């Protein structure tokens, strides 16, 4: 199950979710507390110099252990679905 996390306010995410028809969960970390705890902060990376999250994906199993992860060096480059699904299928 995908869970999308960003500094966006719940209303912004709800708007995006409806507009694009996404069915997965959006979580709002407006103070970037969780993003900081995960060491993913991109200081002043957002519009108007706000602190945002860098793009990162973690596949975690029921014990909370990271089984696959992806950090990008370029915001245009995101993981391919095939790689991600293969990692997900490996989790039983």
């Amino acid at each position, binding site marked *: *199950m995908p869970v999308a996390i960003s500094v966006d306010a719940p209303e912004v995410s709800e708007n995006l979710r409806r507009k694009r028809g996404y069915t997965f969960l959006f979580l709002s970390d407006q103070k970037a507390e969780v993003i900081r705890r995960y060491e993913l902060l991109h200081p002043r990376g957002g519009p108007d110099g706000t602190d945002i999250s860098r793009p990162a994906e973690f596949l975690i199993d029921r014990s909370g252990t990271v089984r696959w992860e992806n950090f990008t060096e370029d915001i*245009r480059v995101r993981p391919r679905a095939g790689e991600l699904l293969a990692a997900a299928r490996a989790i039983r």
Partner: protein
Amino acid sequence: MVDTAARKRTLAPWMGLLLTLLGALSNGLPFVGFPAAPVPWISLLLSLIGFVVVLLGLWRAFGQSTVYKGKLSGSIAAAFSLLFLAVAIVFFWDARHIPAESASAPQVGQLVPDFTLWDSAGHSVSLTQLFSGSAGKEPPKALLLVFYRGYW
């Protein structure tokens, strides 16, 4: 007097301009299912090659003006291709201008910290809760946490 009609046209500035434009547009390739990884390099390379081709055209028009015409059109193409090249370079730099991956970010095999956040409907949700499953639903075997830059 040089007969202007006898001078050859040079297509190089226009070819170059097209390449720089394609370079700028190629940033959209991942949106149509193209593997994203080589895109930043393709975009930059196309724009750079395009600009070199434009320069070749300018050299023809100005340096060999007895053979080629097109000083004005070449200059116009050069101005636009320079703009596209600048856009490609700024894009390239900006898209990669993210902090170095932190060594203390969760790594494969490590436990991630639990958290409680608000969902888009305004309900509080914790990681533990997500793994315990909602009413009537089987708990998920895995979760994919997607941290993203936000929507703007």
